[in-house]
């Protein structure tokens, strides 16, 4: 909580006005999107499409012109807050969700928040490690990130949405954040949809929604339904990312290398591609899971 508040403050007190403006945009866009979408099915389709198009355009603009923007990170925080608020204060008062289901969801969200906080902490530590040993020879897998302006071991990507570089130092946390976020979003959307729609049981155990035709007739139902649809869409995207990460780590390549692979090779999950940095399935994973700062850095130097 404290970290979130701390980060929320940055655009207000610190940076230039322009940056503050782009950063606070999501605080207005997301609630407006959900409120408009809750009016009718056509509004839902319309607002969601508009937001997707808007995001594609604005992200290009931001990456080009304001690479340090907190817009994407604020988008994540606002989404998390708004969805959680709708769940706790609109869906829960329908009195259809058990206390343990609510607690289970909180645990998943907590797992996500902790993973992201640790990711950022490790990146900060990395900054110090790399600074202190700048004079050393640099490993060829140590790539610099021009947004964070640090060198990252086996840099995978700069995650705009978490405002954090992903490399071997925090890849395990990134994967766990993806896992927790996907599960939390799927679970919360299932709880919401089975509350506001007509549910049915699959194999007498799993409850799934089957008829959501009446949700737009009542504002609370509409808003809950739309937030669940939004969660489900995010969950789908994050699930793909999560699976991609699993494949990439198993193969020992980065996202960039993956993109360069020919289509045939991608279809074979890159098994037969040339992977100069891969150390085999098990060692790739231990390297990601057991990353612990300095020793790893030394290992880079030894390899050179």
């Amino acid at each position, binding site marked *: 909580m404290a970290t979130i508040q701390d980060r929320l403050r940055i655009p207000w007190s610190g940076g230039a006005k322009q940056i503050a403006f782009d950063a606070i945009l999501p605080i207005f866009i997301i609630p407006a999107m959900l409120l408009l979408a809750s009016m009718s099915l056509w509004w839902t389709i319309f607002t969601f499409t508009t937001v997707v198009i808007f995001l594609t355009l604005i992200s290009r603009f931001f990456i080009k012109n304001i690479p340090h923007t907190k817009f994407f990170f604020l988008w994540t925080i606002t989404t998390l807050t708004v969805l959680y608020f709708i769940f706790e204060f609109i869906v*829960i008062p329908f009195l259809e969700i*058990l206390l343990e289901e609510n607690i289970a969801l909180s645990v998943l969200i907590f797992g996500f928040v902790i993973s992201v906080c640790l990711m950022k902490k490790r990146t900060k530590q990395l900054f110090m490690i790399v600074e202190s040993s700048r004079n050393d020879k640099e490993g060829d897998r140590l790539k610099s990130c021009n947004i964070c302006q640090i060198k990252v071991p086996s840099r995978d990507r700069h995650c705009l949405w978490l405002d954090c570089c992903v490399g071997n130092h925090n890849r395990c946390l990134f994967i766990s954040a993806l896992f927790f976020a996907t599960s939390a979003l799927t679970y919360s959307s299932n709880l919401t949809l089975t509350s506001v729609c007509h549910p049915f049981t699959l194999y007498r155990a799993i409850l799934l929604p089957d008829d959501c035709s009446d949700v737009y007739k009542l504002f609370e139902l509409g808003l809950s339904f739309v937030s669940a649809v939004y969660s489900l869409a995010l969950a789908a995207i994050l699930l793909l990312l999560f699976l991609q990460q699993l494949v990439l780590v198993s193969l020992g390549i980065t996202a960039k290398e993956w993109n360069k692979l020919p289509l045939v090779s991608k279809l074979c999950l890159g098994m037969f591609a040339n992977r100069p940095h891969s150390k085999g399935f098990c060692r790739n994973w231990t390297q990601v899971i057991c990353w612990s700062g300095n020793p790893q850095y030394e290992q880079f130097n030894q390899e050179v």
Partner: protein
Amino acid sequence: MLINVILAVGLAILMILVYFPGRHARHYSYIRVENVLDEILWAAPVQSKLKNCSYEDIIVKNVDVDISSIYGTRYFEIPLKGGEYKPKNCTPLIKTALIVPYRNRATHLKVFLNYMHHFLQNQRIHYQIFIVDQNDTLPFNRAKMLNYGAKIAIEMGYPCLILHDVDLIPINTGNIYGCSKTPRHMSSSLDTFRYNLPYLTLFGGAVAILSSQFKQVNGMSNKFYGWGAEDDDFYRRLITNGITPYRFSPEISRYTMLPHVKEIASSERFTVLAQGSEQHKVDGLSSLSDESVIKQEDLYTHIFAS
């Protein structure tokens, strides 16, 4: 330091707000399936050559009905005029009046009758279905309609009343439609509530109560127009009379609700509920007018009241 204390207190308040049990659906205590037979109040068997109907296998070998099949035509014996049925090859030990308040739900009624005759006949009980139709233009008064139905059923000598909504369909065959010694909330595991119980004192939907108990609490209140709270008032009446209703196992208490838009609670419900408890003696079965018309239909007894 002070900020930390404020933060901690704030966090604690937030935790209580978020995880307060009253905000959630509840787990509840219930009679287990194997004890259900001991709880049912059996009617004294009439002297006859037939042997008594057995109910054990109905409860023990209970199965869930496929929900998609409830709309299909189901086989049942044509009941006597007025929707009364007695099993022919054994003497029933359960005699129940099924009272259904109703207005303007023709499609639901059709599905309900088609399903319930089949369902109840399979349970080998003596039953009669009463549809109580509100024929005025005021908002729907569920409790008053139930009072009319109960009054007529009691006059006809039914010892057990089941107060039932027309949009509820029991989906477990072991959900026995007889009265227990204590009034019983039957629809505790409803699909539109995710098979959970919204709150512990919920006493609406489908309820089984002995006629003697219904008379003892002077029935339900006649003052609740619109949707909501009449069942809460009924629960209070029972509690003030020292009767605490219970529930049977969720396994046999599964219901499905026929599709319609979720209703919004009437805004006056709490004001009427607040003035409730002193009114129990004067408002209820005793304050009912005699202006009701009874019509015997093929599948049910139709009562018109207002």
